[in-house]
């Protein structure tokens, strides 16, 4: 038999990007402690709908921690109090009866609020697009194990590829920098043999797109703490290395075209 929680929620409500938002207080009564954080919001929304009020808009999709859609600031922490956990994987058994929970959307100038807790994270897509795809003609897809990849490299690329693009790193950063996201996306491709032909083109394009929207890294380390996939800071150092090298390499390349 699961416990039931009575909670006080302070939730950011905002009509659209242009309007002023404010915190509204809600009483969430009889929340089963088996519920996930998002299911708790679903229960609150059902109550609001039955009273004829507009439900609280919050971002969510797969609810199993792999799609990167969900994510809100919970009590001043991106994705809430559990480390390495997306909002959807946070469960109400981590809370006590009578707790007050403050829920705010991600904040960054490049992430305007669309409605309530939903923000526009499309600049992250712009960074991915700037990275392009492997456009060097290499013929048909090679056999799976034809290109030998050292185990260490495969592991490192896999760690980088774990990024789900939720934007918690930007949300947690006091400078709203997207370094952790960009470095993970960059290192995922730049560490592998398949990514080498366009390595430095990609580094320059992705970093310069990132800098159009986001701040710069001052090495606080808040991003890794917020990251549901615990992407390490190391990738940021690799990004710094590749970017500076790219300026030199791409200049040499330009002279050969």
């Amino acid at each position: 038999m699961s416990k039931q929680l009575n909670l006080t929620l302070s939730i950011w409500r905002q009509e659209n990007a242009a309007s002023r938002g404010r915190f509204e207080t809600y009483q969430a009564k009889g929340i089963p402690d088996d519920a996930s954080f998002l299911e708790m919001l679903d229960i609150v929304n059902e109550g609001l709908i039955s009273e004829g009020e507009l439900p609280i808009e919050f971002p969510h999709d797969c609810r199993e921690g792999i799609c990167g859609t969900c994510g809100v600031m919970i009590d001043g922490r991106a994705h809430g109090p559990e480390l390495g956990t997306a909002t959807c994987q946070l469960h109400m058994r981590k809370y006590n009866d009578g707790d007050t929970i403050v829920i705010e959307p991600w904040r960054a100038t490049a992430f305007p609020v669309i409605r309530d807790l939903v923000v526009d994270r499309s600049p992250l897509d712009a960074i991915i697009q700037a990275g392009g795809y492997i456009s060097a003609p290499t013929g048909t897809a090679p056999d799976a194990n034809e290109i030998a990849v050292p185990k260490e490299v495969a592991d490192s690329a896999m760690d980088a590829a774990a990024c789900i693009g939720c934007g918690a790193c930007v949300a947690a950063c006091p400078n709203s920098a997207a370094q952790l996201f960009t470095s993970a996306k960059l290192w995922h491709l730049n560490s592998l043999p398949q990514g080498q032909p366009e390595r430095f083109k990609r580094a320059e394009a992705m970093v310069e797109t990132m800098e159009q929207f986001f701040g710069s890294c001052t090495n606080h380390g808040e991003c890794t703490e917020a990251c549901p996939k615990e992407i390490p800071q190391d990738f940021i150092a690799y990004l710094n290395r590749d970017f500076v090298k790219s300026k030199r390499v791409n200049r040499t390349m330009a002279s050969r075209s």
Partner: protein
Amino acid sequence: MAAPTAANQGHTSSADRPLRATPRSLPFPFSLYQTSVGKKWVMAITGLMLIGFVVVHMIGNLKLYLGVIELDGVSDYDVDHYAHALRELLVPLVPHGVVLWIMRLGLIAGFGLHIHSAYSLSRSNMVANQAYESKRDWLAANFASRSMRYTGVIVLLYLIFHLADLTWGRADWFEHGEVQSNVVNSLSNPLVALIYILANIAVAIHIYHGMYSMFQSLGINNPSYNWLRQGAARSLAIIILIGNISFPLAVLANIIEFDPSLITAGY
């Protein structure tokens, strides 16, 4: 086209609205300084230069503890011999004071670039960031990392005061080139000593995060030594802190003294 509704009013994709335009690219390597990552490299390299200066300056100041020694027939405080030698570096290959001025110009350029990159990055970070309305819970950021802007400004103000105090001379007791006497005269005022102590705490805090941050900004990262980076930054900051605040304390405790009868007029 349908009239805008409350839901879609004025909403376009945020990716269509960059916060800043990409400027026309300058030739390499100046193109690096047009980017934030490049500015961080400049900040890290100039920071390393300035740390090198602070360390050498502190080691030079340790000569304050050595008292009077005799060198080439001149009996003077060791720190005054040292100051004299700095001006005489590479003499007679180059004229008197030239090497010192070359080093000073390097430091001034380093300071200029360090401050300009900090200012420019802070400005763009402020544009990119929006404050939370609720209380933030910091997990990794520490006091040093969050106060870099403030400790940086304190260090700059302190630098100006320090130059006015012991390089340009702000009071009657100041005598150009008489290091031991000037230091003792300045720091025997408890208020001035307090300024030096507080400012050097800010210097150490700034160097602690700066040194750690330097590793990341320059891409100095490898699992074989990453565990050493925090400790290296902390040890350096502590060594600089202890060394530098020892001088005002030693003057107040009369460990560093000036006695004109012990020296022969030399330089």
